[in-house]
């Protein structure tokens, strides 16, 4: 929370990206903008808030930069919204920008879940709290199913994807293999299925794309 006061004029050595005509955003505004997202994003949609901030509200990134960061954040492990905040903070103001963006994004949620943790550890015996949580849990099951359906729908029609989805699900839920084992089996298969096509044959297929 205790951000060091940012100097009114930026020192020339501290510029992450040497773009001469674009004012470099200060760390505090990066922190505050992501804090705002962390505060209002009840019920998901964080990536949409981040996109609006970075491309429309503050125009800190170009569309190409944003798309590249988005793809990277989704490919690498970790929470997608946190990865996106971190990579964009890094592109805007280097490591300090990345740290400011992530801390801003997560601090409201961390305070919320800590309060929930304390309440849950004390109030697990109230029958009313238990039934409320049971109802919320049933609703949350519907939510996670909907997220899986939305993301999965295009893949459920692809010949290359369906066997991989099924095999992963069966290995994890029915054979009860550990996640490391499942990934060690499935990732090489997936990479082989989606290996980049060599240049020559790509030229031949150019009309299709």
């Amino acid at each position, binding site marked *: 929370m205790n951000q060091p006061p940012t100097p009114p004029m930026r020192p020339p050595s501290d510029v992450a990206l040497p773009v001469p005509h674009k004012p470099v955003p200060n760390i505090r505004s990066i922190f505050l903008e992501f804090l705002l997202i962390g505060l209002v994003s009840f019920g998901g949609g964080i990536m949409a808030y981040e996109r609006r901030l970075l491309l429309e509200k503050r125009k800190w990134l170009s569309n190409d930069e944003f798309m590249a960061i988005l793809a990277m954040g989704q490919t*690498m492990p970790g929470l997608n919204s946190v*990865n996106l905040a971190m990579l964009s903070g890094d592109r805007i103001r280097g490591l300090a920008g990345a740290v400011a963006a992530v801390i801003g994004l997560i601090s409201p949620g961390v305070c919320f879940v800590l309060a929930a943790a304390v309440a849950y550890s004390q109030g697990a015996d109230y029958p009313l709290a238990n039934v409320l949580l049971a109802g919320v849990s049933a609703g949350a099951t519907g939510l996670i199913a909907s997220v899986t359906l939305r993301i999965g729908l295009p893949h459920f029609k692809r010949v290359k994807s369906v066997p991989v989805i099924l095999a992963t699900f069966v290995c*994890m839920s029915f054979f009860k293999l550990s996640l490391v084992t499942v990934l060690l089996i499935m990732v090489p298969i997936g990479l082989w299925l989606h290996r980049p096509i060599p240049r020559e044959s790509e030229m031949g297929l150019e009309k299709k794309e």
Partner: protein
Amino acid sequence: MSVLLQLALTFGMLSVLAVGGGTAVLPEMQNVLALRFGLDRLEFVHIYSMGQLSPGPNMLMVVIFGYKIEGFLGAAVVLLSFLLPSSVLCLSVGRLWHRIGERPWRRAVQNALEPIAIGLMCSGVYAVAQGAVNGFLSAALALTTLAIIMLTRINTMLLILGAGIVGGGLMYVFGWR
């Protein structure tokens, strides 16, 4: 001390394995928390659900596991070990990539990981449903929520809270499950 270390190792491992976002590691998280820390399925689902009510990234609910197992120190250890490893990895690879530019292999890696992540998410749905759905009423609530989210643009936090109030009320008054 050893509990904290075990928490750090568990969540650090989950962090770097979380391909396609945190939902993919839910089934593994449930297994590991049950095996190593004795957390039952119902507690897991309750804590997962509280994350859905919170602002910001919903997977921050991992902090509650940390608190439940080892107090505030446990919460801090879980938060750091769940966020730091993947962040360091993503930042270093992101910088490297920015320098060398787009390569066909990044696309290939993403295409390869997507269906795996979806398979893991299906396992996540299965794991959560096993704890949350234990009767006619909870099944109906889950399906209704699913249908409403797919068909409308309602705020999901409010919807889930509604499911808690309506469903919880029916459970309380009639004893349905």
